[in-house]
């Protein structure tokens, strides 16, 4: 009980801080807005930094009271400007006599460029709602009181209802506190990762969060919103086309088509809620070609300046892309088809619930009996109102998952790339990964050459020299010659050792001899950490895949040992059947999971190792997904499509 009371007190405190945040929002905006709009920029950093004190307090209290760690997501403060040798301060291409302005400008850039600033403002606005679960023991009785009073229950019933809900609120206080603490963390904690590996990562996280937190009905409601937005967008496009082609206001045409693509983009990203992934269908804008005579050529036309050439090119690019016209059809039809698919379940739920609430509101204002409203008249009997409404809502919830799937299919129908475009994109992607691959191969060859040159080659030369010495000494000083022989043997052994290292870096012998599974087991044996290995792999994979997988796991284990301060690592390898992880893939997928119990917080932006991993696997269309919250555990999931699995074959030319 005391724990519950303490949770209630903690929730109350956090809620008071949230309310205080909302109260501060007014003054902050009063100071901040003129700064932004009237050019009084020196007003900008002050309030924003002051706000950080408040949010910092909230972070600390959230940690102390609810035990939920909230990261401080701010970029570090810029260092004070340093004068140049001549005493002036330089910022960009201007010189200043005093440090004041460069410092102010740095601070403005710092504050405005930081996403966390805007998250702070968002928190101030939303916190009184988001932190509500923290004060459930107050909220529940208040709600009960309101409902009961409007239903004109007898006083005794009201009293007991309030008491019961207050107790229930108290019982729920700890989970309410956690929920509001999580809200603070979401808004004030920022995101841990960004950059190229993170795209995968962010995607992964969003999907997981959405999967956990929101029901199909909520998702459909948001999708319904996009269908509604499609109406004005469609009207604007049609207007642009009519005015453009009809009245010759040709500049409107690409605007109406290309600049309004954000809606379709949005829809494509939301489609993953339906379990559908829709790649972007647009062809890339071709590069502008300058002829030897300095003119720019677009189609059959020549232009003197790049400005018009670019415009025309964009025009042709938009008009000739089939995706443009498919999207136009989508914009026109989605409010009807998509709206219908998403709308039916949402409306059933809204109608069902609204039917319960509306009569009470009407009753509150008009005073007439709620039975005469809504379901009371709709179904014919006042008593049928509640079950009727609930049944409608339940029906809506029940059909929502199916509607969501259908909706995804509908979105894909017109928004996915046509065959040509998909092919063009694939070519683009392959060109990139081929460049990556040849780069990597060239780098690797250079490294091997250097290793051989610095190591074994030099040793063998020294060996030859020693043999020369021995030859000179063997008749005159046999004892010294003998001693040199011993050293020569050692030098030979050393050269061999270095050669072994080089070979191991190119293609580990155990990988050639035993294949991936045993090679990873051998890696685990060599690691300074306690590594458990769980491998379900019956076949030999193609050699390049095995090598890429081996070195990726090696890199991951190395990272765990070097950076993560981990004690134990679990490595799991399995072969997922075709299409298991990615419906686009037509072969099996090798999945490698490396999980350690270290301190977490791995960030691809800091480590070239993780990016190197992504590149190494990217050559084979593989992906890297990293989940590494501060405090751990770190989990690295690497997926590598293997087009074909070959049986055990004879291996590399290296011989033992």
């Amino acid at each position, binding site marked *: 009980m005391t724990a519950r009371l303490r949770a209630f007190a903690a929730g109350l405190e956090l809620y008071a801080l949230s309310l205080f945040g909302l109260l501060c929002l007014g003054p902050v905006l009063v100071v901040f807005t003129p700064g932004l709009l009237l050019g009084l920029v020196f007003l900008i950093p002050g309030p924003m930094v002051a706000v950080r004190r408040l949010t910092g307090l909230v972070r600390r209290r959230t940690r102390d009271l609810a035990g939920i760690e909230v990261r401080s997501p701010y970029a570090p403060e810029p260092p004070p400007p340093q004068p140049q040798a001549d005493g002036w301060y330089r910022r960009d291409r201007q010189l200043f006599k005093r440090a004041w302005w460069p410092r102010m400008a740095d601070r403005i850039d710092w504050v405005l460029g930081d996403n966390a600033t805007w998250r702070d403002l968002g928190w101030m606005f939303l916190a009184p709602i988001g932190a509500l679960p923290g004060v459930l023991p107050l909220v529940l009785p208040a709600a009960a009181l309101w409902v009961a009073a409007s239903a004109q229950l007898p006083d005794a019933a009201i009293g007991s209802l309030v008491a019961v809900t207050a107790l229930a609120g108290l019982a729920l206080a700890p989970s309410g506190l956690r929920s509001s603490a999580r809200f603070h963390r979401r808004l004030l904690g920022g995101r841990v990762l960004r950059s190229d590996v993170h795209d995968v990562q962010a995607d992964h996280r969003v999907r997981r969060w959405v999967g956990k937190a929101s029901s199909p009905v909520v998702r459909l409601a948001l999708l319904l919103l996009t269908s509604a937005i499609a109406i004005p967008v469609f009207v604007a496009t049609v207007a642009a086309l009519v005015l453009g082609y009809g009245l010759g206001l040709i500049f409107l045409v690409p605007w109406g088509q290309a600049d309004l693509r954000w809606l379709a983009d949005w829809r494509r990203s939301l489609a993953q809620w339906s379990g559908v992934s829709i790649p972007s269908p647009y062809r890339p804008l071709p590069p502008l070609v300058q002829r030897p005579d300095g003119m720019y050529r677009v189609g059959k036309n020549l232009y003197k300046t790049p400005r018009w050439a670019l415009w025309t090119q964009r025009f042709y690019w938009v008009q000739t892309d089939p995706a443009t016209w498919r999207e136009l059809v989508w914009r026109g039809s989605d409010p009807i088809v998509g709206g219908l698919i998403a709308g039916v379940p949402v409306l059933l739920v809204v109608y069902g619930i609204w039917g319960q609430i509306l009569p009470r509101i009407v009753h509150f204002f008009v005073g007439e009996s709620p039975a005469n409203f809504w379901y009371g008249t709709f179904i014919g009997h006042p008593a049928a109102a509640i079950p009727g409404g609930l049944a409608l809502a339940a029906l809506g919830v029940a059909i929502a998952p199916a509607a969501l799937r259908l909706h995804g299919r509908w979105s894909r129908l017109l928004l996915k790339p046509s065959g040509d475009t998909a092919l063009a994109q694939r070519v683009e992607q392959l060109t990139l990964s081929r460049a990556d691959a040849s780069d990597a191969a060239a780098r690797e060859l250079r490294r091997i050459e250097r290793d051989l040159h610095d190591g074994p080659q030099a040793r063998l030369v020294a060996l030859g020299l020693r043999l020369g010495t021995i030859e000179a000494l063997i008749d005159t000083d046999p004892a010294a010659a003998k001693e040199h022989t011993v050293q020569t*043997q050692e030098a*030979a*052994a050393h050269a*061999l*050792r270095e050669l*072994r290292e080089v*070979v*191991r870096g190119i293609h580990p*012998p*155990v990988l*050639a*001899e*035993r294949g991936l599974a*045993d090679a990873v*087991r*051998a890696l685990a*044996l*060599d690691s*300074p950490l*306690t590594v458990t290995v769980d491998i379900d792999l019956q076949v030999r994979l193609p050699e390049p895949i095995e090598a890429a997988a081996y070195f990726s796991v090696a890199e991951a284990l190395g990272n765990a040992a070097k950076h993560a301060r981990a004690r134990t690592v679990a490595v799991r390898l399995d072969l997922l059947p075709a299409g298991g992880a990615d419906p686009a893939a037509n072969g099996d997928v090798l999945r490698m999971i490396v999980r350690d119990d270290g301190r977490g917080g791995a960030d691809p932006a800091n480590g070239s190792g993780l990016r190197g991993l992504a590149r190494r696997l990217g050559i084979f269309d593989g992906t890297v997904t990293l989940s590494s919250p501060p405090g751990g555990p770190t989990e690295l999931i690497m997926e590598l499509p293997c087009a074909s699995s070959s049986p*055990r074959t*004879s*291996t*590399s030319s290296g*011989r*033992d």
Partner: protein
Amino acid sequence: MRVVLAEDLYLLREGLIQLLTAHGFTVVAAAETGPELAAALAEHEPDIAIVDVRLPPTNTDEGLRIALEARRRRPGLPVLVLSQHVEQLYARELLEDGSGGVGYLLKDRVLNAGQFVDAIRRVAAGGTAMDPDVIAKLLTRARPDSPVDQLTPREKEVLGLMAEGRSNAAIAQRLFMSEGAVGKHTAGIFGKLGLGPSDDDNRRVLAVLAYLNSGR
């Protein structure tokens, strides 16, 4: 002593034959490929087989697999495996049956003919000869919660040399202590690793195995 040799590189094979003959061994068969080795082992029943891990036709671990197979058919058949690189995985597979008479050495070790011949004799006599490289890798790792961890530093040193396959006398000479002291240490090691008194040579192999497994 009758030796069956398997090595696919002509130069190394001839060199080994010369070296062995010079030290009084009889090379009854010198195989070039995996199948030849299997046939030679079945035909000659040698006192020891000296085998390269990687042999044609697969050029993978054919030699090792044939040697292990031969030991299954004739338990205790002494096998000395040579390799261009040492892998704990293979060392463990060789030691797994615990019956001794195995060796696993880098090919470099033939450069020091005296030690190499010594290792062959040890293996042929039912002892072990593990490459110092395998042992060194294990020594660099400190793992908690393995029984080997309970050993004193001195006992670990003794176990390390024992793992290479040295006799008590050789260990005593190496560590500058009396043979009796080594005996006391080995008894301590066997006790801590839970190895009861039985055939002494066999216990040494088991201790080495425990040592290799301390990684897990």
